[in-house]
């Protein structure tokens, strides 16, 4: 259980980021890259200021900056959203490794960064935030006027525009917010869990967050629930290989592949109503018909 609360927050925040962006109609394959920027910036901020909280802030801002590029390309210049996200991931991979080398002179890990404090149960504040934020997000998306506008823009932007919603600025705001969430998720990896930045971060967690978002049917509670479920599978696998000497069995890979395979299965079998927002990934042209 403790492990779950440790592993879940990065996935939860990134998955919520995915939900925010895609419910507004912008596909976000770039979660992995945004998490990577966030993880590095959080470690760097924490090291240079000595405060993990400022590090967390840096992580969120770095994620937003990366998301800004995605928003600019896919909304202003109407680039294909999938391509823009992939490009972001590629740039994050190269640029962060380059920065790690340039700033800390190491290709592998950053120096230790001051980590977030843990309470007497061993949890950071972000673990509790990962429990509360999805609920707040759900309420906001379901009941707040702004949340309604976000959903409208993701389902039928032209209709929303007719009613006076400014589609592109709202979508841009959602992509930026998505970047903040993904950046925070990445930040938890570096200043929350490990206490330093590792060149391999986030090691596919951004894609797992994407899977959690799909598994959770593009809803905040569903995505967060899926993220907790995936984190539990991860934790169970570690427990198992720890306690049962299952290292001989070498089944870690099967466990790790399970969340992705399950998500695919749910999609393939169409269990429940699994549907992306109608205008997800469709560029909006304000001058079009």
């Amino acid at each position, binding site marked *: 259980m403790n492990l779950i609360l440790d592993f879940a927050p990065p996935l939860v925040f990134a998955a919520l980021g995915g939900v925010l962006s895609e419910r507004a109609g912008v596909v976000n394959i770039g979660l992995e890259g945004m998490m990577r920027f966030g993880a590095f910036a959080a470690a760097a901020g924490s090291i240079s200021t000595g405060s993990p909280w400022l590090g967390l802030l840096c992580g969120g801002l770095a994620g937003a900056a990366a998301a800004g590029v995605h928003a600019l390309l896919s909304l202003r210049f109407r680039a294909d959203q*999938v391509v823009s996200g*992939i490009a972001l991931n590629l740039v994050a991979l190269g640029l962060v490794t380059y920065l790690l080398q340039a700033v800390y002179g190491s290709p592998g890990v950053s120096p230790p960064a001051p980590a977030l404090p843990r309470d007497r149960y061993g949890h950071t504040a972000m673990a509790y935030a990962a429990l509360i934020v999805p609920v707040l997000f759900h309420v906001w998306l379901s009941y707040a006027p702004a949340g309604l506008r976000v959903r409208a823009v993701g389902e039928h932007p032209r209709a929303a525009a007719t009613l006076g919603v400014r589609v592109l600025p709202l979508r841009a705001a959602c992509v930026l917010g998505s970047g903040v969430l993904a950046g925070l998720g990445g930040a938890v990896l570096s200043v929350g869990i490990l206490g330093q930045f590792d060149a391999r971060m986030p090691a596919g967690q951004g894609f797992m967050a994407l899977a959690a978002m799909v598994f959770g049917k593009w809803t905040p509670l569903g995505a967060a629930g899926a993220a907790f479920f995936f984190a539990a599978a991860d934790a169970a696998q570690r427990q198992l290989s720890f306690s049962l000497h299952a290292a001989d069995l070498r089944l870690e*890979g099967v466990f790790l592949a399970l969340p*992705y395979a399950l998500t695919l299965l749910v999609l393939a079998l169409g269990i429940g109503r699994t549907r992306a927002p109608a205008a997800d990934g469709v560029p909006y042209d304000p001058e079009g018909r």
Partner: protein
Amino acid sequence: MPDLRARLFAPARDPLWGAVLAIALALLVSFVAIAASGRDALAGFGDLLSGALGGPGPLGETAIKSAVLVLTGLSVAVAFTVGLFNIGGEGQLIWGGLAAAVAGRLDSPLALPLSLVAAALAGAAWGALPGWLKVRRGVHEVISTILLNWVAIHLVHGWLVAGPLAAAGGGASISIAGTEPVSRAAWLPRPLPGSRLDLGFPLALLIAACVWFLLTRTRRGFEWRAVGASRDAAHASGIPAGRRICEAMALSGALAGLAGALLILGTEHKYPGVFRTGYGFDGIAVALVGGGTAAGTTLAALFFGALRAGATRLQLVGIHPSFAELIQGLAVLMVAAPRIFQPLLARLRGSSAPAASAPPVPTVQP
């Protein structure tokens, strides 16, 4: 929604110049980045060039890397023709590499061709699956291929190579972990002494020529392109669109699987314990910069292969070789948004192409 190829490439009405400009801009940005970090950027780029093209050794490295990129790039480009975005190259490459490593243990003169066929089949199966899911179950291929990548990565690296297929006595140390080595007969021959260049490079070029012929000069290629342009129209004119999509995705996966085989049979000679190449993802960059055509993709692969080979030399001036990835990512970023260049291109071409014919750029502030 316009079809995939139109969305990706039509806005760049001059894809060649768009790609050249994108690469030039990416190089410029990275040059400034090196200079800004207080290093000798000119010397760094000199090292990059000599590491890619200076003599048989570097040229061999460039050829090895280019060959793999040609195949993963073509894999993505073939999927583009039927209007699918295959992000699953990495997973297809992994299965292909594993199949080659297993089949390559045969001690027979036929080990090499058999391993290549096994790799192509394994990749094809992993590629056809998202095609089938798209056609039959309506699962978007971007999501399914991403998921299948991670299923492949974890199943192969976390289970098969570490467990059932692991070499006896290995396992504990990463350097000797992996499968049993392939037999000597399965190695890709290296015709040139002093260079690691192997037969993979001519093989990749040959395959590229075949793909070009298939896509542009055969009935099947025409039908694939028709399906990519409009699945409904193709279906209405009697083309079995669903089957064509699955076929193209199988070929796409087979190409990525062959790329894995080149890595295993050319340089690794076994399936190693750690095999995260990133070539599958790079194929996306190669195909996008190459404009989605067979010829353009091959050219882009040669360029990025040289970049990758040369980047290893950058370590001499204290720059991590991942710098090549940065340049590649920046190039895709620029190619992704051809509208950025539209005004510039129009000006370059002067009056021959009036700017008025360029698609209008929205003036809404993001």
